[in-house]
């Protein structure tokens, strides 16, 4: 079973306890009314979809309940690092 380290529980926990939450560090525009249709659509729908390291949100739903961020390799499915929500994306090598 895939184990994911929850940065709040500070434990490796089974994948079954978690839910995926999409790409991380996608900032909502401060003033949506000032956005053009194109830039709003860009924010809503367009994601980087990389082959390789991907920063993404996860929630420890059936655990401490917290959202956190993870850097996962989209080819190998390996979790390189997990970190608390609000922290900057760490520099990591694949």
């Amino acid at each position: 079973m895939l184990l994911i380290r929850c940065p709040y529980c500070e434990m490796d926990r089974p994948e079954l306890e978690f839910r995926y939450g999409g790409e991380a560090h996608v900032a909502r525009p401060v003033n949506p009314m000032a956005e053009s249709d194109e830039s709003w659509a860009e924010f809503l729908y367009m994601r980087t979809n990389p082959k390789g390291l991907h920063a993404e949100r996860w929630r420890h739903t059936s655990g401490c309940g917290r959202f956190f961020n993870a850097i996962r390799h989209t080819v190998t499915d390996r979790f390189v690092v997990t970190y608390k929500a609000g922290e900057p994306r760490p520099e990591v090598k694949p």
Partner: protein
Amino acid sequence: MSDAALPAAGMLGGCTVRKADPAARFVLRGTAEVAAGASFGVALPSRLNRAEASDPRAALKLGPDEWLLIAADAAGDIPTAALQAQMEAALAALPHSLVDVSHRQMALLVEGPGAALTLNAAVPLDLSVEAFPVGMATRTIFEKAEIVLWRQGAEAFRIEVWRSFAPYVQALLAAVQAENEAAA
């Protein structure tokens, strides 16, 4: 895994499953300051995934700002309203959320040398006493049901489960017990 790591036939160990006494239950959300001033009757743990118990009261820290409070005072005399009023008075000056969930869930006690093995048929956590020590309590899953699992002793666990999921959990535990007994 080598065969040596598996329990030999006859060493599976049995366990008993029974319903715990009725209890008052609350979910408290707030800061560490709220936890310190809760006036619940037992100190609220500051470490995540740990329980603090002094019979018949127990406090389980399930999230960074979330505690499950259990007051299993003598049956027939469950002090839900009085306890809630007492805690609300103590916390009046602090932003917090205190919700009575007494009727939402019930508890099952799984006890005996085979308790961890039986639970592990449905719980994906490492339940060895090194990884899940006595006094640890956490939300997790039991097959498709969400539960709170609290290790009260080396061979004693308490499952807090939502009432409508309880028959499912009980039936699965009974099936696993029967299989382990047949294998033993």
